[in-house]
C-alpha cells in the first residue's frame, strides 16, 4: 500500500512559537486514522498543511504522492471538513450542492442528494439556520460527494452533542465502507476515535509522540503496577511512557515488544483512552508541556 500522507521533518512556526515540529509520519492508505492530542497540540496545523491551506516552515509533506493543493487535480483528490464545519450561512442547502457541482469535476450529485434526503435536510433551508449537527452533515456531504481518495476532518464533532456526534461518525463510517476512502480525523476526545479509527497518531506539545495501528499500539503497551521503585532500572527494551507513584506503589505505562518477566509487577493491558492519557501525563512529567484536558 502506498502512503496517503507522508511527512518528513515537517514543522510550522508562527512568529516565534513552533506549532508543529519535526513531524515525520507515513500514513498507509485504506485506514481511518485518528489524530489525537490536547487542544493546541498542533493537530489543526498539521491538517491545514496536509490540505495546502498552510505552507510548511520546514520539512516536506506529500499527500497522495503530490504537494498539497498543487493544482486542481490534487485538490480534487482530497476532501476536507474544517474545524467548526464552515458553510455559507446565506446559501441554502441546495446552493451548497450546486456549489459543489460547479467547483468539483468529480462531483457525485446522486450521492449528495441521496445523503441530504436521508439526513432529512430541507434543500431550501439556509445553512445559517441549520443546527450544528446538520451543518456538520452538510459539510461532510460536500466533502464526500467530491469523491475524494482521502478525506481529512478537523475536529468535526467537537461542537456536536453526543447524539449528533454518533450520527455523524456513523455516517462517516458508512461512507468509508461505500467509497473505500482513506480518512484522517482529528479529535481531542479519545472516545470519538475509539469506535472509528484503526490507526492512531498521538500529537502532544507540537510533537508526534507515537503513530501506529491501534491494535499494534494496544499490544505493545502495558500497565505495570508494583512496589515503589525507580523506573530507570527497567530492562532496556521497555520504554517508560508515564510514571506515577504513591507512598508504596509505582504504576508505569511502558512500551515494549517483548513479554514482561519481572514477577514484582502486576501486568495489565491498557485501553486506548488510558494510553493517550499516559502519553499526555508522560510529556507533562518531562516538563515539555502542561497536561491539557483530555475529556469533556
Amino acid at each position, binding site marked *: 500500500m502506498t502512503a496517503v500522507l507522508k511527512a518528513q521533518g515537517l514543522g510550522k512556526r508562527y512568529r516565534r512559537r513552533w506549532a508543529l515540529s519535526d513531524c515525520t509520519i507515513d500514513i498507509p492508505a485504506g485506514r481511518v486514522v485518528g489524530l489525537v492530542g490536547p487542544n493546541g497540540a498542533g493537530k489543526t496545523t498539521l491538517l491545514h498543511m496536509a490540505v495546502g*491551506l498552510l505552507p510548511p516552515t520546514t520539512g516536506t509533506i506529500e499527500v497522495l504522492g503530490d504537494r498539497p*493543493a498543487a493544482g486542481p487535480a490534487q*485538490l*480534487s483528490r482530497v476532501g476536507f471538513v*474544517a474545524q*467548526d464545519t*464552515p*458553510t*455559507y450561512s446565506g*446559501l441554502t442547502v441546495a446552493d451548497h450542492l450546486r456549489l459543489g457541482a460547479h467547483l468539483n469535476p468529480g462531483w457525485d450529485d446522486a450521492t449528495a442528494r441521496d445523503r441530504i434526503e436521508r439526513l432529512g435536510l430541507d434543500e431550501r433551508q439556509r445553512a445559517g439556520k441549520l443546527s450544528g449537527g446538520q451543518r456538520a452533515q452538510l459539510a461532510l456531504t460536500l466533502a464526500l460527494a467530491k469523491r475524494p481518495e482521502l478525506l481529512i476532518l478537523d475536529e468535526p464533532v467537537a461542537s456536536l452533542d453526543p447524539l449528533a456526534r454518533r450520527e455523524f461518525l456513523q455516517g462517516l463510517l458508512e461512507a468509508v465502507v461505500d467509497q473505500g476512502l482513506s480518512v484522517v480525523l482529528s479529535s481531542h476526545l479519545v472516545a470519538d476515535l475509539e469506535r472509528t479509527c484503526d490507526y492512531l497518531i498521538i500529537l502532544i506539545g507540537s510533537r508526534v509522540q507515537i503513530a501506529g495501528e491501534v491494535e499494534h499500539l494496544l499490544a505493545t503497551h502495558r500497565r505495570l503496577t508494583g512496589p515503589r521503585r525507580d523506573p530507570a532500572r527497567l530492562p532496556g527494551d521497555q520504554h517508560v511512557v508515564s510514571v506515577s507513584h504513591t507512598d508504596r506503589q509505582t504504576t508505569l505505562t511502558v512500551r515494549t515488544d517483548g513479554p514482561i518477566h519481572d514477577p514484582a509487577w502486576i501486568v495489565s493491558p491498557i485501553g486506548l483512552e488510558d494510553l493517550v492519557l499516559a502519553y499526555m501525563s508522560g510529556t507533562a512529567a518531562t516538563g515539555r508541556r502542561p497536561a491539557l484536558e483530555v475529556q469533556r
Partner: protein
Amino acid sequence: MMWLTWRQFRAQTVAAAGLLAVLAIAFAVTGPQLAHLYDTTVATCAAQHDCQSAVSGLQSDDSFLQSLVRLLMLAAPALIGIFWGAPLISHEIEAGTHRLAWTQSVTRFRWLAVKLGLAGLASMAVGGLLSLMVTWWSSPLDRVGAGRLDPSVFGERGIVPVGYAAFAFALGVTAGLLIRRTVPAMAVTIAVFAAVETAFTLRVLFHLIPPVRVSSPLNMAWVTETGRGGPGGPDQLFVGIQPNQPGAWIGSSEVTTAAGSTSLGRPPSACGPNSTYSACTAAIARMHLRQVIVYQPGSRFWALQWYETAIYLALALALAGFCVWWVRRRVS
C-alpha cells in the same frame, strides 16, 4: 467559480441595479427640464443683458437633486470599497468559509481571480453608469460657473469615477485581506480612500500635464481688490485679480511689475484714504503692471480625465496583484 461568485454577489448586484434604475428615472424626468431651462434662459441671456440672474436661476433649479448628486458621486466609490471590496475576502475569513472554498477542486488563484474580476468589473460598471448619467444630467450646469474642470466636480464627471470605483474596490479587498475582519477593514478602506483621493486632487491632479503659464499686461477688468500688504511687504501695493477664463482651472495668479518682481512698490498717491476707487485703479493702470497666470485650459478636460483614470486603474491593478500574491503565499 463564476456561479458561486454570482450567487454570493447576487443581492448586492440587484440592490445596485435598483438604485441606478431609480436614479435614472429621476434624471430622465428632471434632465430635460434642466436643459430646457438652460436653452431658454442662459443661452439667450446675452441678448437680454442679464446673464447673472439667468445663471443663478439655473444653479438654484433642482438644488435638492444637485446636492444629492454631489453627495452620491462623493460617496459612491467609498461605498463600493466598503460594501463590495472590504467584505469580499474578510467575510470569508471571518466565517471560515475560505477553508471550504479553497479545498474544493479550484485553486486559490482562480478563486480570487474570478471574484476580483467579476466584482471589480461590476464596481467599474456602476461607477461608469453613474458618471454617464450624472455627466449628462449636469451638462447644462457645467457650462456655467467654474465648469467641469473645477477640481470639486472634475472627479465626478467623465471616466474618472470608473477609476475611483476600481481603486476603492481593490483597496477594500486588500484591507479585508490584510486585516481579516470586515468592520475594521471597512473603516480603513474609507479612511485611506478619502486621504488618497483628497491628496491626489489637491496636490497631483493639477500637475499631471505641465500647466500653461501666461504672462501678460495686467487686465484691469480682472482686478477685484487693491490695498496694502501682499507678497512685497506690509507697506507695498497689493492688487488681487480673479482671471475670467471660462472653463479653465486656475492654479495661481500673480501681479508683478514690468520687471517681473512681485514687490509692486509703494501704492500710488491716488490710492490714499481720501481718494476714490476709480482714481486708484486708473493710477494702477498707468503703472504697466503684468499678470502671471498658471492654469489648465478647459480643452485639456479629457486628457486630464484619461491620465487620472489610468493612474487609479494602475493602482487598482497593483493592489489586485498584491492580493493574488498574498492569497497564494501567506493566508491560511
